[in-house]
């Protein structure tokens, strides 16, 4: 992780229009994303009060004792980290140098709202929470995008289906 990337992360956070311009330039070069893919769709028929919910975030969240995401590879890290539903939010940390997460470091719920979801389950506003939630880091380039699409995302989907999860709240970094 270079000083330049760290600086750019600060600048993009402070001046979102510059970040949007950078995102457009990434998209215009392709970066391995097939834009012609059909948007996946499944109607949601359950009452949310009965639904089983998981969190998936690309904000770089993982358990402090787990292996951090690779910040040396300039193309990012396409792997995922399992975050057990039993985890204490105090045991979570963020490894993601491509955005300014100083506020999330103060309150992890702004990127990984586990405590809010627990409150909703306790109040009966949600059915239950999944056994596991998943952390990824959303700065992927070159071949890592294909790895995400062809390996990482399908593996997470398999695990969610095996746990009878009805819907997922996805949060970016």
């Amino acid at each position, binding site marked *: 992780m270079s000083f330049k990337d760290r600086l750019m992360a600060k600048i993009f956070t402070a001046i979102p229009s510059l970040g*949007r311009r950078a995102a457009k330039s990434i998209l215009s070069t392709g970066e391995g994303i097939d834009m012609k893919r059909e948007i996946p769709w499944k109607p949601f028929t359950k009452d949310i009060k009965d639904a089983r919910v998981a969190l998936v975030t690309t*904000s770089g969240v993982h358990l402090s004792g787990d292996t951090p995401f690779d910040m040396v590879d300039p193309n990012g890290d396409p792997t995922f980290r399992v975050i057990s539903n039993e985890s204490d939010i105090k045991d979570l940390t963020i490894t993601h140098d491509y955005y*300014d997460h100083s*506020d*999330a470091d103060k309150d992890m719920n702004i990127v990984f*709202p586990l405590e809010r979801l627990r409150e909703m389950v306790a109040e009966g506003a949600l059915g239950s929470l999944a056994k596991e939630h998943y952390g990824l880091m959303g700065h992927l380039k070159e071949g890592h995008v294909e790895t995400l699409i062809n390996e990482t995302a399908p593996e997470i989907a398999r695990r969610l289906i095996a746990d009878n999860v009805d819907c997922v709240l996805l*949060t970016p970094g």
Partner: protein
Amino acid sequence: MRELTEEVGVSRAVFLKWPMGHPIGEPNFPRGQRVVIERAFDALKKIEEPGTIIDLPFRWKRRGDFEVG
């Protein structure tokens, strides 16, 4: 970023024009965080067309916005 969400093609999304790194809101403001999460879950049924993005009406650091919605 809205443009990225549009291009990637997400089934359902809610969007807030807030600084990066704050998808659920301000730190230590559980009331606001909760409203954003509820609106995201509302979108599960509200959105009927794949790829729809709902723009939520909350302005950054305007806590009063959460009291009327």
